């Protein structure tokens, strides 16, 4: 990867982190509010993001668009027959998301905002990821 490519991904990540902060998606309070169905804010953000995403992906697919390097864009389909994996794994993620009030993106954006204690859940998340890797063959998928 060339330096200019790194720069592109760095800038997109920076915009992403900036938006997460400005829209308070990173907030434990906003996640509580969302799971209590007390406000539209989070549903508005995720809903509009998905609508914009669906329209963009359809445009890319229908026009067989290529990426900046000239390679065809292919999105690998996920195997929906692994219902257990998505339901159990998803529920465990949901338990953690509501408990910590932050998913992976916000964990790192909050760390950047100066909330140094986020280093602890980030390390715990790495331990969780590693533990999944260890137990993977024993878990229902």
């Amino acid at each position: 990867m060339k330096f200019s490519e790194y720069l592109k991904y760095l800038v997109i990540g920076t915009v992403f982190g900036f938006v997460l902060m400005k829209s308070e998606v990173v907030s434990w309070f906003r996640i509580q509010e969302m799971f209590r169905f007390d406000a539209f804010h989070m549903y508005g953000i995720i809903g509009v993001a998905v609508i914009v995403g669906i329209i963009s992906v359809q445009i890319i697919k229908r026009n067989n668009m290529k990426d900046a390097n000239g390679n065809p864009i292919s999105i690998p389909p996920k195997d929906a027959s692994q219902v257990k994996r998505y339901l159990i794994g998803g529920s465990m993620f949901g338990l953690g998301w509501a408990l910590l009030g932050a998913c992976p993106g916000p964990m790192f954006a909050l760390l950047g905002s100066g909330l140094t204690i986020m280093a602890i859940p980030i390390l715990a998340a790495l331990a969780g990821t590693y533990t999944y890797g260890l137990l993977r063959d024993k878990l229902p998928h």
Partner: protein
Amino acid sequence: MFDFLYEPWPWYVAGPIIGLTVPILLLLGGKMFGVSANLRHACAACNFGNVQFFNYDWKSAGKWNLTFLVGSVLGGFLGGYVFANPEPIALAQSTITDLQAMGIQDFNGLVPDDLFAWGALGSIPGLIVLIVGGFLVGFGARYAGGCTSGHAISGLSDLQLASLIAVIGFFIGGLLMTWIIYPIILS
């Protein structure tokens, strides 16, 4: 003219920008937006004990994404420190009332000081939130094959049934935690 940089952004501004991350990454390099994959790449970079799940070329698979993640930290610094929103969050009153009843006292920042300070590591609720919460996020994201960005944004954008099932799972877990388990942890 740059006042908007110092103000909170409404959902109809943030939603489209987050949604556009999907096509921008696809068009730039055919990359699928998903933050939690970076946790796997980090494990692959270390891979103590030579675990098979982490035996892959994380550099070629993940350098772009780890760079994106560094950007997210930088964006957090800019959006949460340099241009931090000046006022406490305009939370729904019903949420504030419920959380106060659960013992949350600090509503000034993006997270309650009661749980998100180094001192919180000395309390049982603080330990559960920070360590068990983080662990479940990391474990669950990999088990489900993605997190909020990978499934709820990227996967749903591509109309993937698997991602819809995962998002339903996110809400089963989230509702269970918020309504049943959290009140017990904080009591």
